[in-house]
């Protein structure tokens, strides 16, 4: 039996860790977002990202991917504009 010792890069992406969230889910207010990218830097999953679109104040706003979000709340904690709120998630 032959077992390969190398695997394809980034393959964990097929594991959707979104079902790890217990109670809270982040909600981003696009209008309050100033596009500083701190959420992108702190997110342990690396799934806060720039949408490339601008809000009414001309700032590029960020979004999160709930397929992977584990609901830790660090994005809401570090956001200097208080644009992210942890809301109770109804399942």
């Amino acid at each position, binding site marked *: 039996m032959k077992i*390969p010792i190398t*695997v*394809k*890069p*980034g*393959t*964990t*992406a*097929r*594991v*959707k*860790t979104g079902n*790890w969230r217990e109670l809270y*889910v982040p*909600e981003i207010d696009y209008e309050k977002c100033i596009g500083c990218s*701190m959420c992108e*830097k*702190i*997110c*342990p*999953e*690396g*799934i806060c*990202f720039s*949408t490339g679109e601008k809000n009414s104040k001309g700032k590029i706003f960020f*979004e*999160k*991917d*709930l*397929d*992977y979000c*584990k*609901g*830790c*709340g*660090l994005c*809401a*904690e*570090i956001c200097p504009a208080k644009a992210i709120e*942890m*809301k109770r*998630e*109804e*399942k």
Partner: protein
Amino acid sequence: MPQKSKYKAPLAHLVNPGHSACAGCGMIIASRLVLDAAGKNTIVTNATGCSEVTTTQYPMTAFKIPWIHSLFENPASLASGISAVLRKRGQEDKINVIAIGGDGATFDIGLGNISGMWERGDNVLYVCYDNEAYQNTGYQSSGATPLNAHTTTTPAGTKSFGSQLPKKNMIEIALAHNLPYVATATVGYPLDVIDKVKKTLAIKGPKYLQIYCPCVPGWGIEPKDTVKVSKLAVNSGFYPIVEFINGQLARKMTISKQEPVENFLKIQKRFKHLFASPGGQKEIARLQVIADYNIKKFGLI
């Protein structure tokens, strides 16, 4: 269920999601910040520990760059070998070699091999993510565990306040090897981590970066408090953020207002016994002395 967003994550980082690190994990933030700052022309060698088991469950990997794991003590030796091959091929300036290990791999198990790599002067950046115990195997104490912390091998009880040994001073050990670059950082200040990785990779020779990473289950904190705890550790003087270039203190993160070390301790379950028993105040005072000493030593205020 919240409304489905029309935007999808581009998965542009060099560490993909889907890994099994805990919610709020400090280590995985550090891994991603370091690799994103280093860029895709990087080869990583990884020690055994959380950074290995959470990211590479066979047959998957979260990494999008060449990544290799051998044994607990081996990342420095592996990195030495890779660096030697790159030197021979004349690719040394194009490809970064980074060794990543936890505090167990760095302070205890791999120390001899790391010392060898530093002595030989290989062009490798060694990154230690310091979560102050063997968190992966169930919170056993390591050389990095601070004084009075509760771990499963230094349990707090009626006769003990937890770990009776202070944290090993790995920064001094690194400095004693005359490294061109030695620094500490913390995930509480991500921009500082990115800045330091970019700066250090421009320097040729062996480099050491120690990143303070709170561990959610091991320290008994809320996932959302990873940043808060890191910042309190820095602002109380408990974990000084310093940078040495050629042995000289080049930069430090100054504190505008010193937090009492008590504020840092009381939000962590690993220190809660200090607040429960009458002798605890004396032990907190001992930890305050350590913080005050750090502030005085590096002139942080």
